[in-house]
């Protein structure tokens, strides 16, 4: 129960209790949602650290291959042929080979990790982009239109989620010829991997967007737009989409590490990048399948560490981004 109103006219002309003055006397300006999010993100040291690492990684992937030695050059003199392992401690680490050399061949591990970063990141980024585009489009449509459209799309997503993806990937890589769609060799393989990974991870994005759209479409601003005569496409892409940027950003960031791991898994199974082009998964697979990890643990440790750090950086950054954009979901 509210207290009985007893307000004198004098009190009605109240002055604000707080003085609109920032600390140090600076004037306070209105902040946009983005600015608030950026402020929150900046305070999250872990997220910022991860972001710096990601930027570093991207720079390595872009410029690194021009700085390191050839990842294809054999150095048989650095290898003990009887045991297949590199001469010297820690996988043959030396001034010329900072991360050591590969068992059997003597190829420089640093060069292979750096060039591998390029392939692993290209595949992960583009596959994520593909998944986001498909996922957002269908998620929006399913959530906004509802009814049989929603049923159709939602069930399709269920089918995709239930699909034995790895088996399909192995089969598809096996049947696609060596040159198709104007590509050949490794370019074709990279394209194929992007397609497979992207095409099968869109439902994760689609379901999230669909759920968000379902709640957004009942909001007043959508009703307002509709009463002003706005039609489907306008509402979808001008009203709803901007409000979904937060979740899209967050879940894209979280999808990237998943895709890096997936690329590694495919390379591990021998259907990833075509050798001798390096990729992290291929290096791990070499270490495990040939049993090199017994004689040269460094050779397994280095690509493993690269995958671990990358996946962790993207995950932590994604978490930080989510906390910044949408603190309620914490």
């Amino acid at each position: 129960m509210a207290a009985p109103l007893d307000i004198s006219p004098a009190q009605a002309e109240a002055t604000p209790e707080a003085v609109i003055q920032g600390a140090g006397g600076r004037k306070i300006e209105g902040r946009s949602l983005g600015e608030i999010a950026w402020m929150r993100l900046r305070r999250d040291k872990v997220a910022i650290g991860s972001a710096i690492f990601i930027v570093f990684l991207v720079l390595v992937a872009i410029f690194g291959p021009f700085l390191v030695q050839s990842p294809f050059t054999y150095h048989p003199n650095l290898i003990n042929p009887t045991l297949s392992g590199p001469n010297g401690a820690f996988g043959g680490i030396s001034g010329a080979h900072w991360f050591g050399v590969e068992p059997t061949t003597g190829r420089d591990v640093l060069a292979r990790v750096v060039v591998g970063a390029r392939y692993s990141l290209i595949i992960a980024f583009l596959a994520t982009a593909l998944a986001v585009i498909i996922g957002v489009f269908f998620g929006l449509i399913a959530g906004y239109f509802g009814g049989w459209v929603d049923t159709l799309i939602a069930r399709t997503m269920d089918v995709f989620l239930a699909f034995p993806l790895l088996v399909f990937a192995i089969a598809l890589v096996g049947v696609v010829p060596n040159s198709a769609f104007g590509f050949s060799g490794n370019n074709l393989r990279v394209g194929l991997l992007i397609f497979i990974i992207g095409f099968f991870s869109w439902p994760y994005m689609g379901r999230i967007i669909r759920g968000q759209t379902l709640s957004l479409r009942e909001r007043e601003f959508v009703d307002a737009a509709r009463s002003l005569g706005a039609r489907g496409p306008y509402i979808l892409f001008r009203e709803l989409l901007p409000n979904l940027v937060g979740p899209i950003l967050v879940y894209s960031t979280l999808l990237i590490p998943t895709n890096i791991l997936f690329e590694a898994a495919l390379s591990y199974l021998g259907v990833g990048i075509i050798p001798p082009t390096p990729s992290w998964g291929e290096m791990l697979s070499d270490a495990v399948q040939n049993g090199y990890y017994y004689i040269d643990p460094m050779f397994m440790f280095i690509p493993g560490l690269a995958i671990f750090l990358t996946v962790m950086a993207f995950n932590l950054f994604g978490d930080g981004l989510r906390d910044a954009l949408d603190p309620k979901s914490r």
Partner: protein
Amino acid sequence: MIRSKITGLAALGATAALTLAACGGSGGSSGSNSSSTSTSYGQGLTSIINPSNTPSSGTLTFDLSNTPDSTDYQNTYYAFMWNFVRLYSMQLLTYKSCPGACGEQLVPQLATGPGVPSNNDTVWTYHIKPNVKFENGHTVTSADVKYGVERTFAKSVLPNGPSYYQVLLKDNKYPGPYTDRAKNVMGLTSVTTPNATTIQFHLSQPFADFDYVVAIPQSTPVEPAWDTGKYGGANFQLHPESTGPYEFQSYTLNKQITLVKNPNWNASTDTEAKQLVNKIVVNLNVNANTVDNNLMSNYADIDMAGTGVQTAARSKILTQPSLKGLADDPISGFLRFAYINTKVIPNVHCREAIEYAANKTSIQDAWGGPVVGGDIASTVIPPTVIGYQKFDLFNALSQPGGDIAAAKQQLKLCGKPSGFTTGLAYRTDRPQEVAAAQALQASLQQVGIKANLQGYLSGKYYTDFAGAPAYVHAHDLGISQGGWGPDWPDGYGFLDELSNGNTIVPAGNTNISEINDKSINSLFATAAGQNNTAARTAIWPQIDKKIMGMAAILPEVYQKVLLYRNPNVTNVYFDRPFGMYNYAVLGLK
């Protein structure tokens, strides 16, 4: 004729046979002596380690990292199984149990002597020993041997074994005993049994190597009555009827096989096997690294697969002298090589450029180096196979790093001085083959030959990809990685499927180079009708040289395996025909 063949082989293995005689002579007493003497690296290649005829009450344990294709002797194609089934079966002929080249001799086991050919080598007659018993005490007759051969025709029930009888016998349309309704008629007309101890094989064409065919475990006798009901057909492998020193006690699929002594086995009728332990246990699906650890810590006695130790155990064995003395490093008789397709790369000089440019050392390293990879190869026939003759057309031995100058010279003669582009097929699920393909690619790059790697899964490699000429032509697969081990250790077993023009088939092709050379084909025809062993053996190096002259095969390595022998096991030695230790004679201290 055949007698001369056997003597010829005996001469080849004379030194090894002498060693055997020396060891075998002292029998049990030397067994007790040897327990204190230490053995040396590679000693098992030329002599029997811990020779002993003393029975032990212990259990001989085999570990296997996967499972056998079948324990049915008529339905298996794995070398280790052909070796192992000798513990519970007898064949008409078998390989002599002795080390070195001596072990490549065929000796009668169930038969009284080698096959007697007649009618221009198309009829082969064997007489079997009259007093050999099955595990149930029944006497083995020629009809039982015939029934065993009939079983090999039932490919829908027993698909795994080789098909030599279907290829060679006249009655090649016989459907097998399970669909042959009139059981008592004994339907395979190409095998006749004039009496209980005589069996005759009627071939559609002369085949001088037939003795090797009956040495394959498929000639094991089986009673038709045993092959019915609980242990009939595909379930026969759960308890194959034994004629050997041991019999099945139990077989839990994918887990364990247990063998116990066969009371009806008689050492006087089976001189090539021994019955020295009470029990034999085979543990299946043991992790490959665990197998090695079990061997070295005496939890297991033999690694059944016989393909050598893993990387981890290799570095242990080679770096510790005490372990190294317990290891052997034999040439297994298996060749790693690359097919160079004569249709995709029709110009011989272009193919020769590949032969010269290949860096044999880095390819050898890819296969595992000089100890477990193999010796650098310059011929198609490996040194342990009858018919080997050393030659080095492309300087593989004198310039193992690749003869770049000669390769460039050949490219000029080919009309492509700056090189060319071709596909290079390999199996993605074989890590060493992946490495070898990359090493070959890297070395060809040096002379401008660009080899595009094309990986395939091994399950379909021969049926759909490298072994399908139409696919090979359409995808420009000029080079395909391959490996070959013979079904029997002579030139025919090695060369026929790789280079005889009539073996080119649309799918499952093993003559991937598509060698169809008149002179080679006629040499094979000559050999098939040549009963004189020396003359026949002289043909194999000729074919080998012709294949190499065509530059149709790039030999990479004569595979070597690093085998570890548990010091508690007796009568251990490397058996050439199977490329591993002889399992038929093992005992325990």
